């Protein structure tokens, strides 16, 4: 499906608090047109987006071998799943990769944006454009390149690390944390430019008066960054977090390319890889469907939590 590797995103952070009851549109327009206009989308969505998923939900209550028999098992798939150590392992892996790929990236993106914000920077436009270049590559090709670079005995990264005295023959495949670092590096490489641009845009929108008054009060550049820039970025940070979460919890292509079975210690087994293997390797479609539903719940919960936190911050922050 053309959802892209981390899902397509809406680029609008929830900056303003919306009163949920207000209708933001135009009352005088004939609302009946609405039905016609959303019809194509709803139709396509129901047929190609919703129906397959509903069918999968249906089969999560079955033990279904596509070439064999299927029998109704009720909640057994879910019960087995909660008792399956692989499920919890995959949660650990997914969150570990998510943590390693989201937070360092965010710090770096904010730092980078801060550098790019300077109006006296030469080659502004060039730098900004370069930032998006990693985003246009295919995941498979990049995984091949990075797996070479991360080779245990002969990879360039290990060469650099041992030259710098930081480590020797680190196994970025077998080691649990190193393997997550490898994946996180690929994800960070791909998305940091994109997120930098988002932060940059938000920074550029910060009214100059705030910096003016801060500097009048005698604040140093660093203090201005801490007390003016960062607070104004709160909404953007939460937005980037939410989007990063939805995508990060569904990391699939990179781990699958590196170790399709998840690795000997199941270090690469993310939630979606776990799902995929149960469905397409073990042919346990019912079980896989159950995993899919659990993934959705997890993403839903985390996103809701993020949303409410962001709402609270916005509420506190708006004047």
């Amino acid at each position, binding site marked *: 499906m053309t959802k892209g590797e981390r899902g397509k995103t809406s680029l609008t952070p929830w900056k303003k608090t919306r009163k949920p009851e207000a209708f933001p549109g135009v009352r005088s327009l004939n609302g009946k047109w609405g039905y016609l206009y959303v019809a194509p989308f709803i139709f396509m969505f129901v047929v190609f987006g919703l129906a397959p998923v509903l069918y999968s939900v249906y089969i999560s209550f079955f033990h279904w071998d*596509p*070439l064999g028999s299927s029998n109704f098992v009720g909640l057994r798939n879910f019960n087995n799943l909660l008792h399956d150590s*692989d499920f919890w392992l995959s949660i650990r892996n997914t969150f570990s990769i998510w943590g390693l790929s989201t937070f360092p990236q965010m710090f770096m993106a904010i730092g980078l944006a801060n550098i790019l914000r300077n109006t006296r920077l030469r080659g502004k436009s060039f730098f900004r454009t370069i930032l998006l270049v990693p985003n246009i590559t295919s995941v498979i090709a990049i995984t091949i390149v990075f797996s070479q670079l991360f080779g245990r*005995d*002969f990879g360039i990264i290990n060469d650099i690390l041992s030259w710098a005295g930081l480590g020797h023959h680190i196994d970025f495949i077998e080691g649990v944390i190193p393997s997550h670092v490898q994946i996180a590096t690929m994800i960070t490489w791909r998305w940091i430019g994109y997120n930098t641009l988002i932060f940059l845009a938000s920074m550029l929108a910060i009214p100059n008066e705030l910096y003016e008054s801060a500097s009048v009060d005698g604040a140093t550049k660093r203090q201005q960054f801490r007390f003016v820039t960062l607070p104004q970025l709160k909404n953007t940070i939460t937005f980037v977090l939410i989007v990063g979460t939805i995508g990060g919890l569904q990391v699939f292509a990179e781990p699958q390319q590196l170790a399709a079975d998840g*690795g*000997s*210690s199941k270090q690469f087994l993310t939630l979606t890889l776990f799902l995929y293997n149960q469905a*397409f390797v*073990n042919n346990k479609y019912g079980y896989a469907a159950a995993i899919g539903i659990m993934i959705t719940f997890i993403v839903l919960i985390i996103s809701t939590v993020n949303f409410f936190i962001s709402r609270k911050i916005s509420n506190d922050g708006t004047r």
Partner: protein
Amino acid sequence: MAVASIAAAVIGLGAFSAPAKAADPVTITIWTFGDVIQRNLVAEYKALHPEVTLQIKKSDLDPLDGTNMVTACTSKTGPDIVATEVSYSGYWRSYPKCFTDLRTMKTTGEPTANIAAGLSASDIKANYLPWRWAQGVAFDGSVIGIPTDVGGLEVAYRTDLFKKAGLPTERGAVAKLWPTWDKFIATGQKYNAKLSAANKKAGMGFIDNAGTIYAAIMNQGTAKYYANDGTENGKLIYDTNPQVKLAWNTTIKATQAGIGTRIGQYTSDWNIGMNKGTFATILAPAWMMDYIKAQAPDTAGKWDIADMPGGGGNQGGTQLGIPSYAQNKQAAYDFLTWYLAPAQELKVFKTYGLFPAASVLYKDPALTGYTDPFFNNAPVGKIYAEGVQTLKPIFEGKLQRAIDTAIGAGLGRVAAKKMTAEKSWAQVLSDLKKVVNN
């Protein structure tokens, strides 16, 4: 003039006693992976049968023999020919309903290639290695695939590195070093002992990956994880089969003796290691020789091939079969029988190094006399032919591949020093319970 053309027409008409079907254009769709279907043979067949178009779709192995074939079978679509790799043979043998029983097909006949008309799979069975043939036979006896090649397994070793370590280099003497796996491990330890401290630190070792020993030993037995009880799933015996324990224990012993460099096969580190002499031996199937030639051309002449401990082994191999829902079964069967005929399999061996499963060739001097200068002029044809004939048919059941994966992961954990051998085996057993149940 007119008489001549009429005569020619009459003679021509007489020659076309075969069904007119042979001249109608037909497209055979083939799902395969890698170079199973050789390009030059495709061209050759096209010259023989201009009306036939071979449409080949290559995929990665797992999506092909897993996802795509499953989807095809459930949705009653699919290609005319599919290539099933040996690691999936256990799975598909449980689902003969997805394949055409090739015993029910009859060849149209290919005079130019010495293929008679009316041959079914049963008629050509004798041309092939029995245990490779058996991998294409479903639990109910139907023939769902005919073998293309046989991986074979022998030890490819570096003569220059052996010399440095004070080991013999002539292949007969080398084979005598290791009639058993224990002696193989001992030789490895001897080799490692001779390495300089610097080389040891750089990660050099005797064999590329000790884990490869497991598969070799498993293939030397008479049973793997299943016994054929006539049902579609087979009876699980992985926990009682002594061959499993033997293979596991020997591999663990080799791992703990440190004779492997723990480099993963087919990684870029492995390619580099080949070039640098990081490891001195590889358990190499016949087709890997070409791989070594391509990846490490500068090591030409420094390799040789010796017999493996315990006789032969196997790694890899493919069966070609015709799915049940194929559109052009007859044309597909004709192509298949031509492509898999001993003459063609010999051609494939010569151009690509895939060792033929057609055992009639093993007496053919064209095969037995074949030597490879890259491998020090070793008579590779003879060596592999002898090796593959020592193996016996093994029944493989539905979850064979999944079980192999779980055990492989267990061995990997021990090699990476993540777990002790006992704990790792315990996890293997619990993982297998999940795979096998539900």
